[in-house]
């Protein structure tokens, strides 16, 4: 194998599994260490710089970082990355003074943002400090998009959302709420330098052809519409017996909200087996805990209506069969159809994009499903001035993905307005610094805690089911949070190898607790992977390969289960190994100074 090019900013980035998996590439271990040091304001700012909504995400993020966490490869459970983020938000001090301070000197350019969800708000935050005049349009009464209309208050208190939305709007954004944009053409004619579309995926799927749908309409609701009506207090109650159709997170929010509005026999009915439901495991757990029945392997057949009143639904029982490629099919079982009684039904089987307000004669190209053609790198549509992001770009995802899109769209818009090539994107902000303090001392806590994941306490069901706005999760207290932080392996503290210093004494290889390091004769990657002390069988994880050493061998380190314990560097007599902290901040239009040295005490 060729020697690894550690100059490539993505090499060490990939070693920080959580950060790499995070769509916005939040510097997770950096903020976890700050929480351990009780520097909550700083921890919050590291998050805010990167993911814009730490308080929201610390409660609601889909957390793609956690399954990626290195900890899963050496024990059972990942670090509670998401819930630690909330600790930073809950305990922060005055963060506003560390944010870019307006008024910003105008650069004479105007940008329109359509939709006020996390994607648009991120674009606003990144462009405002550069002097752009930003106009944000949303049909809702306030900013936040689905964070406001869909995510229920018992998961995300309104004050938390308001605070973080206002951090951005207070940067001098011109907002026009309660304004539905019904024509892109009109917007274009107003002479904006660029337009960003962050209108989400606002259309809930229906079951229009299911018998009884029309007759029962009064008692059948589309999940996301119903949740928005609850959020904006147009809907205040539901009947006792409720069926929720669907197995995703929307279904979980619908059933749990129903429990709070009067539903006491709430059943979620889903086609797939329980284990394969789209909802996150923790969402399912929370629903079960609130006495909601989840009935799997049932496909809806009809709405049953009697005397103009919905009385329930009929389902066919199925079982999942898999072909040799693992593709699933739901086949009917011989068992009789099932009737489930109910007074109201919520349909939560997915969302779609819909762009009725975009005229098709503007020159914007759409695909066969009515989705605009959007460049995956630049987020530009085929109409050069118009950019997309969030759920509007490639279909419904989640808040953190919308934020990640927002950052990249802002970079593109800035390049576009400056007349530069959108594909020639600035590099990420990186920094690699030795952590050595003394012969065997590091400025990070290198010991490896064996503690199992700590559980976040919840408020009593008696209280939370009575009040739709009462937050269920209480968050970690500071003491428990500290213990949880110690589980983090500091994957950003890299093992940096300098071959000309190595005397090949084997000390690192001998001491490494997880047998990561091997000195061996070089070979092509597949062979080399097999030749290591313990074969490197996880192809997702890279090998760090040195140049040839004096004895003709190379040093090969399998990054897979390195604990970043620093022992290799401690046992190295010549400092050929060093532990160096890698800071990586993804390219942004306005790059805040990172890692925020001005507030590090």
């Amino acid at each position: 194998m060729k020697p690894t090019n550690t100059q490539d900013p993505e090499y060490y980035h990939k070693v920080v599994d959580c950060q790499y998996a995070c769509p916005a590439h939040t510097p997770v271990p950096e903020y976890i260490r700050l929480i351990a040091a009780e520097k909550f304001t700083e921890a919050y700012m590291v998050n805010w710089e990167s993911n814009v909504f730490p308080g929201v995400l610390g409660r609601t993020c889909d957390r793609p970082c956690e399954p990626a966490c290195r900890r899963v490869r050496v024990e059972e459970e990942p670090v509670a990355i998401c819930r630690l983020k909330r600790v930073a938000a809950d305990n922060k001090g005055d963060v506003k003074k560390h944010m870019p301070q307006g008024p910003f000197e105008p650069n004479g350019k105007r940008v329109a943002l359509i939709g006020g969800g996390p994607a648009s708000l991120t674009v606003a935050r990144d462009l405002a400090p550069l002097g752009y005049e930003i106009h944000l349009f949303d049909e809702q009464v306030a900013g936040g998009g689905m964070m406001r209309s869909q995510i229920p208050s018992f998961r995300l208190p309104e004050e938390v959302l308001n605070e973080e939305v206002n951090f951005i709007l207070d940067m001098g954004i011109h907002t026009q709420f309660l304004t539905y944009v019904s024509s892109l053409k009109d917007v274009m004619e107003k002479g904006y330098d660029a337009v960003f579309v962050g209108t989400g995926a606002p259309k809930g799927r229906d079951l229009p052809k299911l018998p009884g749908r029309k007759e029962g309409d009064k008692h059948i609701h589309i999940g996301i519409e119903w949740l928005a009506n609850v959020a904006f207090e147009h809907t205040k109650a539901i009947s006792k017996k409720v069926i929720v159709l669907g197995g995703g997170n929307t279904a979980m929010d619908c059933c749990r909200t129903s429990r709070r509005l009067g539903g006491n026999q709430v059943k979620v009915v889903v086609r797939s087996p329980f284990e394969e439901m789209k909802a996150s495991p923790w969402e399912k757990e929370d629903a079960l805990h609130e006495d909601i029945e989840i009935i799997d392997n049932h496909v809806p057949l009809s709405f049953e209506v009697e005397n103009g009143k919905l009385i329930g639904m009929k389902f066919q029982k199925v079982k999942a069969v898999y072909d040799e490629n693992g593709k699933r099919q739901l086949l009917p079982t011989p068992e009789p159809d099932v009737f489930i009684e109910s007074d109201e039904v919520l349909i939560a089987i997915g969302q779609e994009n819909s762009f009725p307000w975009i005229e098709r004669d503007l020159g914007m190209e759409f695909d066969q499903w009515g989705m605009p053609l959007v460049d995956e790198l630049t987020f530009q549509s085929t109409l050069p001035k118009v950019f997309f992001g969030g759920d509007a770009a490639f279909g419904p995802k989640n808040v953190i993905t919308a934020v990640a899109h927002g950052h990249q769209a802002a970079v593109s818009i800035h390049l576009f307005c400056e007349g530069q090539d959108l594909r020639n994107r600035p590099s990420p902000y990186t920094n690699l610094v030795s952590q050595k303090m003394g012969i065997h001392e590091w400025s990070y806590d290198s010991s490896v805690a064996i503690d199992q994941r700590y559980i976040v306490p919840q408020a009593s069901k008696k209280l939370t089911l009575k009040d739709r706005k009462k937050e269920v999760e209480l968050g970690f207290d500071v003491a428990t949070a500290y213990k949880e932080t110690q589980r983090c392996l500091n994957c950003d503290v890299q093992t940096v190898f300098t071959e000309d210093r190595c005397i090949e004494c084997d000390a690192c290889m001998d001491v490494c607790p997880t047998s990561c390091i091997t000195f061996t004769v070089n070979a092509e990657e597949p062979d080399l992977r097999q030749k290591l002390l313990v074969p490197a069988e996880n192809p997702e994880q890279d090998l760090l390969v040195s140049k040839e050493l004096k004895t003709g061998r190379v040093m090969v380190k399998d990054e897979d289960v390195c604990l970043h314990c620093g022992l290799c560097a401690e046992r190295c007599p010549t400092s050929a190994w060093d532990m160096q902290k890698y800071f990586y901040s993804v390219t942004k239009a306005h790059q805040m100074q990172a890692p925020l040295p001005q507030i590090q005490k």
Partner: protein
Amino acid sequence: MSYLKPLFRHPKLPKNKLGYTLKEYEGSLSTLCAGCGHDSISAAIVQACFEMSVEPHKVAKISGIGCSSKTPTYFLGNSHGFNSVHGRMPSVATGASMANKDMVYFGVSGDGDSASIGMGQFVHVIRRNLNMVYIVMNNGCYGLTKGQDSATADQGSKSKAGSINPFQAIDLASLAIELGASFVAQSFSGDKQQLVPLIKAAMHHKGFAFLNVVSPCVTFNNNPGSTKSYDYVREHIEATSTLDFVPEMPEIKASYEEGKSTRIALHDGSLIQLNKLETDWDVEDRISAVNALQQARVKNEILTGLIYVNTEWKDLHETLNTYHKPLNRLDESELCPGEQNLQAINEGYR
């Protein structure tokens, strides 16, 4: 500074016949200097014991004083250990072996511990052919007391402070052969591929197995001009053979060049498969082995590999015709001769 090794291990760490991983054979985290050759030898011992699936409680580590003699703390943490007095490891090992013949004994010593203060004990334990593995971690200096020249430092070798050693070196391997050691090998801490099979073979050899392992002291004797530095040793090392240790009676599958490969059967039926790179001496012939060592010395070469082996000489237990059981397993019927026998014995002294 880390005092504890993390408890996590590679989830795919191989298991041996006993179902143990390397972890069960490790000791606590070393406090020797970073890069000390001794740590590599410890790792080789761990590897050898793991691969041989020895039960850790059937091993005893006995040592004297020195950095080398500290190493038993850093390997085989689940085994027995005795850190004795400077140069007195052999007598403690002899006592232990006499009491319990069923254990594997690792004697761990340094060049100072063996070739200076302990020379008398070293000589006699060889003479008695005690069934043990005797490892000298040879760095040519007294590491623990800050690097004074030892008796194995080569004449002309330069110390870190710049002084030249005026004395001739004691060649421990030649001496051991001369004194009748039945297994003599040399190796280098930086060559585990050779060292691990040598340790395995030594463990299976019945009788005194001596391993002289050059083991650089990075802190006090790794300077230019030292003949025990990593660089010097790598330049002057002459690996004479590659060695496989075959624990059970084999069918040997690997084919080696005719005439260059020898198999030596040990007492317990295991085999040493020796693949010679140089054919100029016979490891089963004492005179030719000593010759080879002397010639290497003249050429400033460090001969490594199995130098000499004799599987016929009796070990101490055989010579003394001791009882077949360890003392701690004798029951009353074996310990008490009975009234009649006691009478007879007493009569004998009247």
